[in-house]
């Protein structure tokens, strides 16, 4: 976190008629950082991203992006950032390469440079063989890569990625992650929203968890795990459906979380707890001891919303 401050928000809020999507959030992002916004659907992640991307006017609060005011300098800021929206909005009337080329022109990039940049990005995202095909003929993963490639056409200083891998198969996700890691190594500031805890854990230096328009936690993935969960989790599955009754029989062993299909017991001594569960002859169909992850911290913080 040594880079200069590229985004800062104070009391940032967004209201749509009667609905308050973002209820006053404060944060800073420094250059070169990968900053994640986590939260359930409707938590306010996309609204926050749209305000940073200068396509949505904050209702109140202060927001600075690259030292400028998004309301007054929207066009200038947009010229220096890249946006990969939640839903692909590629141009179906253009070929894959033309999508990148035409987009470069919207930033005022000269023709020859736009073509060169388009070709570089097609190579970088491994879609060069589709260059002259139609967007409609591409798979979901390729369309996503093309949308991210398009977000990079203007060599942006900040890239906003709204759920970059939602709906992709595992191979496609890993390819996107690998490319995002490369961008990070190039020093580009990335801001991403995601539902996937493994994605956030892999990519983000720092993240915030949003719930109903507010931040409920902030920190590095490791610090969030440390703060909000015990180091280990014992996962219990039962043949019985009455998990609540079973939870009462183990709630002295640690903090118990009841999920639809299993019980989680958070503890710092997983094997001990697992042994004590076995001693009680509750007949679990499986007992698994594992290390806590970001998902556990997320469930602890937003668990009630998710169900």
């Amino acid at each position: 976190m040594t880079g200069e401050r590229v985004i800062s928000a104070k009391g940032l809020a967004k209201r749509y008629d009667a609905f308050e999507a973002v209820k006053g959030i404060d944060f800073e992002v420094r250059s070169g950082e990968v900053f994640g916004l986590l939260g359930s659907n409707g938590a306010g992640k996309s609204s926050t991203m749209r305000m940073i991307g200068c396509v949505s006017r904050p209702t109140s609060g202060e927001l600075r992006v690259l030292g400028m005011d998004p309301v007054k300098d929207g066009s200038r800021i947009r010229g220096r950032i890249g946006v990969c929206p939640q839903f692909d909005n590629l141009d179906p009337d253009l070929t894959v390469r033309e999508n990148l080329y035409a987009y470069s022109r919207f930033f005022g990039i000269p023709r020859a440079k736009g073509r060169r940049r388009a070709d570089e990005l097609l190579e970088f995202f491994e879609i060069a063989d589709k260059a002259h095909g139609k967007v409609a003929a591409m798979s979901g993963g390729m369309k996503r890569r093309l949308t991210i490639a398009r977000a990079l056409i203007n060599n942006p200083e900040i890239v906003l990625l709204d759920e970059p891998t939602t709906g992709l198969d595992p191979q496609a996700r890993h390819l996107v992650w690998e490319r995002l890691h490369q961008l990070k190594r190039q020093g580009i500031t990335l801001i991403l929203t995601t539902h996937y805890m493994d994605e956030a854990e892999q990519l983000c230096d720092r993240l915030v968890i949003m719930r109903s328009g507010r931040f409920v936690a902030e920190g590095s993935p490791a610090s969030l795990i440390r703060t909000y969960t015990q180091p280990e989790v014992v996962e219990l599955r039962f043949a019985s459906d009455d998990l609540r009754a079973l939870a009462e029989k183990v709630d002295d062993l640690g903090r118990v979380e009841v999920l639809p299909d299993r019980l989680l017991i958070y503890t710092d001594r997983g094997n001990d707890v697992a042994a004590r569960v076995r001693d009680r002859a509750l007949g679990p169909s499986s007992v698994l001891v594992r290390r806590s992850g970001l998902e556990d911290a997320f469930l602890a913080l937003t668990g009630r919303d998710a169900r």
Partner: protein
Amino acid sequence: MTTSSLAVMERHLIAYRRLWKSSALSAVLTPVLFMVSIGVGVGGFVDEVDGVPYLAWIAAPLLLSAVFQQTAQESTSRVFHELNTTRTVHAIVATSAGVRDVLVGRLLYLMIRVQFSTVCFLAIAACFGAVRSWWILAEPLVAAAVAIATALPLTALASTITDDTYLPAVSRLITVPVVLFSGILFPPTKLPEWAAAAVYASPLWHGVDLARAAALGQRPDWPLWAHIAVLGVWSAAGYALSSRILHRRVYDGNS
């Protein structure tokens, strides 16, 4: 006009490159077919209007009707799909380009198409003896003015629509009636007074009166300044409205 507006025009031209042959052919052929069938066929019964053969009387106005329909198509269903289906407008306004560039870029693109069909049609109409004055050289300007005065208000209207079941209504309740009652095939003076007033409000009629006057070398029914004023009001109001509505839709009111 900024470089971003030109970039939006370029985007439309790149997409149009793939369909221009069929599209340009129909843009020229449609008014020619109307001119031949109505001009020659109906003209056989009508004989002359104000001392001018019927075919010559309707030729230049028919071109304006084609320009109007071409523009209406581009400004309604196309705008609707770019806002609601493909959402490519949202992609454009996330760049240095803004709402103004989306509007101006599309107008520039329309100008190119409209000028092309105007020149082609007039060349054919001249062969039918429908061009009788050098004033015809002003016709591309008239076509451009009608295209702008049509495109912007219809863009504003289309930008308010979020459900595509309303699109056919726009065509049936606005585009088609305007074409039928804009003094193209008969003068609005043949209509009851209240209906004539509606005709005089439409941007198409003002283009039709000017185009006919230019093709025939006659004085238009209304003075030139009045035509310019009406077309100007439609254009200015259309720009202000479409810009406002689009800003609200794509920027939540941001600049």
